[in-house]
């Protein structure tokens, strides 16, 4: 501390001149040259530490499409496949009784209790007690026989039960092979097939269903022609 004269005012604090920032224009128009950096090694500014979220952001974002892909893979579950393979969407007949299905036009010409069954020896066939045999005559217009060759035929009763063709219960009766094709080569433009079914005597037949596996879940429901 410098000696002071008693009673004199304190000496002013003098700050050394500070160089203006580089490139500062000082009036009246002169440019101050840049100040040289202090001597010594150059130390880079400290790096900011990145947080966990920032470090793993890409991975987290990648999880979004991954989860979406996992969900997409599992969308096709067994239940859906099961239902897709069941006949659930009915294709009904038009006013004239024709149904367009699997590239063919199909019509149920008649559906009635069978009275024409015979044995292989040609004798009248007696239907077992408690049962009714049904005869369905179906008309086809099918330019492509292969498209309907794998069809399944079912009889439907008024309660919604379905019955298979040429049943074991009618063993001994002479019945044509249940098919949707004509059996002729080349197929005629229009032909009729006859199919036999059996139900309990108490059941009343109401329709015939035609199902082609390739068309599932659609199936044709043929009702007796008007």
């Amino acid at each position, binding site marked *: 501390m410098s000696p002071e004269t008693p009673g004199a005012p304190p000496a002013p604090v003098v700050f050394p001149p500070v160089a203006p920032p580089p490139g500062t224009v000082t009036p009246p128009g002169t440019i101050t040259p840049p100040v040289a950096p*202090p*001597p*010594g*090694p150059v*130390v880079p*500014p*400290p790096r900011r530490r990145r947080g966990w979220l920032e470090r793993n952001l890409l991975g987290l974002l990648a999880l979004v499409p991954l989860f979406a892909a996992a969900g997409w893979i599992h969308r096709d579950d067994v239940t859906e496949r099961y239902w897709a393979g069941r006949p659930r969407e009915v294709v009904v007949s038009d006013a004239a009784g024709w149904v367009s299905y699997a590239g063919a036009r199909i019509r149920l010409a008649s559906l009635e209790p069978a009275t024409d069954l015979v044995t292989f020896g040609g004798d009248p066939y007696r239907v*077992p*007690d*408690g*049962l009714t045999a049904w005869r369905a005559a179906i008309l086809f217009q099918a330019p492509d026989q292969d498209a309907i060759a794998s069809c399944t035929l*079912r009889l439907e009763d008024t309660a*919604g*039960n*379905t*019955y*298979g063709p040429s*049943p*074991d*219960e009618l063993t001994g009766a002479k019945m044509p092979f249940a098919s949707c094709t004509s059996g002729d080569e080349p197929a005629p433009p229009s032909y009729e097939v006859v199919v036999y079914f*059996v*139900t*309990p*005597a*108490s*059941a009343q037949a109401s329709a015939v269903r035609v199902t082609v596996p390739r068309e599932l879940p659609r199936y044709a429901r043929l009702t007796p022609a008007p």
Partner: protein
Amino acid sequence: MTGIRRHRAPDRPAARALAALGSRLGIGALLIAAIAVGSLIKSVTPDTDTRERPFIRTGAPGEATDARTFEVRVLEVRGAKKIVRLGRERETGGVWVLVKVQAVARHEPTTIGYAAVRDARGRLFHATERIAQPLLGGRTLQPGVPVEGEIVFEVPADAAVSLSIRLAWTPLDQRMDAMAEIGLDIDAASVAAWQAATEAARITDAKLAIGPDGQVTG
């Protein structure tokens, strides 16, 4: 003038090494915990076979039991040392068990594709393939049209006691589908009598079980 060389705290190698070690140990502990939790979940949840097992519907002899596509009743059980089917006799080192059942499709045509008996130890014996079974496989059941016939099993004598029969529609894949299980109430005396029998049991074809009035017979 002394220049500032760096703005960070001086290195502390021991502290940094400890921190790194702690971090690695933490990750390892998390991995072990994840594996332990996974193992615990796996041990308390059912495996695939258990999870996809058939839905067993139990019934008693004479009682209609629902197997989803058909209903079935056990009418009678008999046994023998020898059987005759389609004129051909077959003998066994164990015992033949013949279960007479009545089955009817529920809403659409179906078959009995799977038949097995289960003994008290949980062993399963499928219906024999040594004969043409009258009711299995090829016989299509129509709704409301009951059919009865015998299903034939060949089992060791010690397994014949306390058997139950299991029936389902599909021969290939019974997973997550209904299966009827009916106890057969076979006692040791019956098994001994069957083994001692000298006469062959004759197996007939399946037949309709419906009367002229449409009533179910049997």
